[in-house]
């Protein structure tokens, strides 16, 4: 199972799917990419928005997706750190807590980080209920999902780099 949830109509142009249809001599590369997804739970970590991000890559910005993801993890780590400080300094300030999580949810949505986004939504619901214990539990889940996604995407981009650019592939003789 890939990084995408079952049943999601992810675009076939998205790289994780595109490579499954590559020529036989690229099967090794496709297998490497799929292996990242095989370790994920069937519920999936990314939605089709990630395909949108990959679609934005072009000759002028060949590493756009990786740059966006790198920025996402740098920014989101800062937001989560600010949030942890906010919990200490402003206990039960649900409006403040919600504002932090709103930021994180927004950037999760932009890159298609669906599971982290869903946990952010859950957290915000607890804020709305003024349930501090629920917020704390939910935030731990946010951190866990965030850490798992980071690992998955780091592996994914590492495999992409190892596989090399698609343009270097050669068609088998006679085909």
């Amino acid at each position, binding site marked *: 199972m890939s990084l995408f949830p079952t049943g999601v109509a992810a675009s076939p142009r998205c790289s994780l799917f595109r490579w499954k249809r590559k020529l036989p001599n690229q099967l090794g590369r496709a297998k490497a990419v799929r292996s990242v997804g095989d370790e994920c739970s069937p519920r999936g970590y990314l939605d089709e928005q990630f395909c949108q*991000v990959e679609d*934005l890559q072009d000759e002028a910005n060949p590493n756009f997706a990786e740059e966006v993801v790198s920025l996402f993890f740098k920014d989101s780590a800062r937001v989560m750190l600010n949030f942890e400080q906010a919990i200490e300094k402003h206990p039960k300030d649900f409006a403040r807590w919600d*504002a932090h999580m709103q930021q994180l949810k927004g*950037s999760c949505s932009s890159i298609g980080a669906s599971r982290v986004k869903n946990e952010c939504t859950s957290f915000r619901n607890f804020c709305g209920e003024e349930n501090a214990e629920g917020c704390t539990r939910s935030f731990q889940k946010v951190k866990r999902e965030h850490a798992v996604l980071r690992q998955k995407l780091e592996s994914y981009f590492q495999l992409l780099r190892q596989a090399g650019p698609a343009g270097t592939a050669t068609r088998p003789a006679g085909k």
Partner: protein
Amino acid sequence: MAFQTQGSNLRALLVEDIKVNRMILSQMLRKFQVETTVVQNGKEAVELFLGGETFDIVLTDNLMPIMTGPEAISKIRAMGATDVMIVGVSVDANSMEEFKDAGADLCVPKLKLEILEHILQETRSKKNKSSA
């Protein structure tokens, strides 16, 4: 995907405080060869209009520091900038009403390339009609 430009020449103002979102939306607009100015909050957007800048389309987030998207939209419309296409972009379902009440033409939870293409085509048609 083939990106149609059709002689774009559109000028966009992107109002977004989150870096990741700015990066993605800027790149989307670049794909359609839209000349884009980027600011980080509603106040900066309003200041551009006050300074006499004009845009064909404004894409704005809701919750931002200093001034929110809806607040900025209200001020921009109050200045008489009624022709500019204003699009609110926010994952928050509660934002839709706020954007519409402030005077946005359109609100979307997420901007996808297909949706942006359609919005830009509409903006271009509107611009061509008013300059005819």
